[in-house]
Every structure is written in C-alpha cells, then in structure tokens.
C-alpha cells in the first residue's frame, strides 16, 4: 500500500509539474505581444542564443559530418556503393543528426545560460523589482528569450547540416577517394523537399521545447545558489530526454 501511495504521489507530482508548464506557457503566450512590439529585445536574444553558439555548432557539425563520412564510407564500401555516401550523409544529417545534435548542443550552451540568467535575476529580486515597476517580467525577460531560442535553433540546425555535409565531403571525397560528382549528384537525386521539411519541423519543435524548458526552469528556480544550479542541470537533462522523445514521435508521425 505504501509503495502504491508513493507511485501515486510521484504521478500526482508529475501531473502538477506538467500543469504548471502549460500554465507557464499560456502566461508567456499572453505576454508575447509585449515582446513582439519590441523586436530589439528578440534580436538581442537571437544573437545571444544563436550567433554566440555558432562556433560550437560549426565545430561539432564538421566533426559529426566527418564521422558520418567515415562510417558511411566503411558501410557502403562493403556493398561497393560508395557513390551513395553523399546522399546517405545528407539524409542522416538533415533528418536526424542535425536537428537532434543541434538541440542538445543548444541546451548545453544557450539553454543553461538562459536558465542561469533568469534564475539569478529571480534570486537577486530583479524580476520582483520589474513587477513593482509595473513591468511584466514574462513579456520583458521570458518571452524574448523563448522567441530568441525558437528562431535561432532552426538556423543553427541549417548551419550544422551544411557544415556536416562539408565534413562528410572532406572525409569521403578528399580522404577516401569517393567520386566528387557522384557525391553531389546522388545527394541531389535522393534528398527531396519532404526530407528538408521533416528537418525543419523537428528543429522548430526541438527549439521550442529546449527554449521552453530553459526559461521555465529559470523562472521557477529556487532563490538560492543551489536552486539555480539544480535548475540549470534540470534544463540539460529534461531537454535531452524531451528532444529524443519528440524525435521519435515526430519521425513516426511523418514517415
């Protein structure tokens, strides 16, 4: 009975948390017009979440692309189908690796920064001060950061994919000797707009989820150093799991 009660309590806690996330999202959407009337607030956040993540995204994208190139070459050479490397690398990057790895990197670099920033603002009464000044922190602080992440992630994904394809090209064509023309022509042959659409849908969903988790955890963090630290950790853990779950759901829906 005690075990059953414990499971019930945990379940109730999870439902309550989910309810508070939905309420938070609705409150943020209500405050969205404030942020949209001040586009500068959003562009600053696109810069913080997007431009400042470029180095890590491009570096990771290039190496992931190179690994895809190596593994792909190894697999296709067994089948004597090395020419398909370009198409395979592009498809795996555009449909899967790009959106997922970009979202995970975003959570680690920009998501944690968002959580820590908002959590610290809360702990030092900056959000309370705004409320007393009759300025809604949801509109002034939270919504622009959410929008910044939501907009930045698809662009970061596109950059990750492009650099990743260059990485696969470098390994496949330059190092392993796959035919240059075949690499690009097979890619053109097999990658269609549906694949790109799938990638865009995923990157938008992951960007929205990662940004929502980051701002929610920051806004609901305890007002202590430990509270902000725990919230930052939760951002990475929750976003990672959520992205993988969403990835399966979207893939199964779109295929």
């Amino acid at each position: 009975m005690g075990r059953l009660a414990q499971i019930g309590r945990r379940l109730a806690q999870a439902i309550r948390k989910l309810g508070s996330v939905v309420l938070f999202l609705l409150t943020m959407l209500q405050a969205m017009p404030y942020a949209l009337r001040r586009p500068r607030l959003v562009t600053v956040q696109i810069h913080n979440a997007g431009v400042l993540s470029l180095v890590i995204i491009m570096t990771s994208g290039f190496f992931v692309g190179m690994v895809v190139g190596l593994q792909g070459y190894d697999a296709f050479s067994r089948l004597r189908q090395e020419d398909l490397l370009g198409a395979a690398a592009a498809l795996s990057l555009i449909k899967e690796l790009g959106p997922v790895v970009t979202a995970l990197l975003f959570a680690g670099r920009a998501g944690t920064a968002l959580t820590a920033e908002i959590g610290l603002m809360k702990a030092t009464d900056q959000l309370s001060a705004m409320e007393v000044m009759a300025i809604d922190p949801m509109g002034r602080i939270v919504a622009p950061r959410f929008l910044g992440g939501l907009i930045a992630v698809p662009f970061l994904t596109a950059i990750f994919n492009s650099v990743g394809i260059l990485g696969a090209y470098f390994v496949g064509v330059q190092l392993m000797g796959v035919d240059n023309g075949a690499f690009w022509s097979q890619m053109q042959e097999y990658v269609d707009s549906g694949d790109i659409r799938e990638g865009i849908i995923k990157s938008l969903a992951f960007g929205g989820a990662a940004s929502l988790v980051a701002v929610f955890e920051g806004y609901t963090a305890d007002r202590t150093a430990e509270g902000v630290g725990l919230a930052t950790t939760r951002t990475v853990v929750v976003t990672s799991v959520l992205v993988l779950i969403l990835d399966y759901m979207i893939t199964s829906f779109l295929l």
Partner: protein
Amino acid sequence: MIEIDDLRFSIAGRRIFDGLNLRIASGTVTAIMGPSGTGKTTLLRMITGQLRPGSGSVRVDGREVPALDRAGLYDLRRHIGMLFQNSALLTDDTVFDNVAFPLREHTRLPERLIRTVVLTKLHAVGLRGAARLMPSELSGGMARRVALARAMALDPDLLLYDEPFAGLDPISLGMILRLIKVNNDVLGVTSVVVSHDVEQISRIADYCYVVSGGRVIGEGTPEQLRHSDSALIQQFMSGAADGPVPFHYPASPYRDELLGGRS
C-alpha cells in the same frame, strides 16, 4: 493612503500575520519595525500586490489591492516606488539605463528628455558621475542610491523602503536618511520604511509601528515608543539581547544536547 485591517497570512504552515491592523497617512514617513522574521518585507509585498493575504483588507489610495486585476495592479504600481534591500539593479544595464528603465517602459518621452530626467535623479542621489558604471562596479551604498534614483524616476506618490540602512557605512547611511526625508518634505511622497535600525529610523519617522507575532504590538511617534510601558517595545527600542523576545531560538536543554543524550 494605506489602510490594513485584520490581515491574516500564512506561508508553508507558518502564521506570518494574525490580525494585523495599521494606517499610514499621506505625506508621512512611517516606520515598520520589529524583530527579524516578523514579516515586514512580506507586508511591503502585500502593499504592492505581489502577495495576496489569506484574509483581511489591504487598501492603497482607497483601492482594495487583493481584489485588483492585473491591469489594476499595474496601474497602482505605477504610483509606487520600492527600494529593495539588495537594490535589485538590472545587472546587465548601466546605472543610467537602470534609472531610465521605468521611464522608457512607461512614458513616450524622447531620449533627450529621458537623459535629462535620469541625470536629475542621479544628481539628487549624488551619483551623476557614475551614470556609465555597471552595477558590479558600485559599492553597496552606491547601488542602494542608484536603486533609490530608479524608484524615484516616475515621481511616485508612495515610496517603500525595505531595510534601506542594512549594511551601509555611516556616510551612505546619512545620505539615504537625508534622501528619504527630502523626498517626504519637498516632494510630499508618502514613505514606508521597514527597518531594524531603531536609532536611525527614529530620526526621520513621523510615526512607528512595532510588529511582532503577526500583529502590531506598539505604535506611536518615536518619542511615545521610547516611553512605552511594554517590556517588548522597551527591549526592541533599547536593543537588549534578551527579554520578552528570547536570545535563544527554542531548543532542547543545552546540557542534554552537548552530551548527546548522555547525562
């Protein structure tokens, strides 16, 4: 200006207010004093509508604060300035931008005029020369003065000060005292000052309330409180370590605890 009747409020099962009543007249400096943890800051948050009472009434300028909707609450807050204990400056903005923040958000003043207003406010707190500094470059006293300039930016009718003297050196403390008094005398601002510092607050307060155990245990002018018959108020006014408010937090017998249950 502020009327609080039969205020009751609990948080995490702990009763903070248990039938608190007080009145704050327009244009006065009113001190709210009391031991730590008696809910003085909570009271300020009730006045600004950041917290809702369990029961009772909080009226500001005739408006029942807990009954106000979001728009009403924000309208009320535009007439209120608050100085936070930890200053609560926006750490990514300069001193100038911190003071300009409420002006840019709530007015359509051209930037040229905003500059004039901000420099005037900063001049009033003696920090016009620090306009380009970041909050991290300020001392605690300077940050408190910048926060005061920001609280005064929209010329509020009511200024709330949460422990304005805590951690200040004598010079900064004297400046803050003078600014509170000047705001009151010259601009007619109603001031509510939450403070432990009986000696300092007595120099400028028109009226004082002593809050303990969730209710007002004494009130009057600083002079009246000094001559109060209440042992509790006397302990508080004289700063005695022990008295009706015990020095020791409730605990098991000292001997038992030190010997770890062995005697």
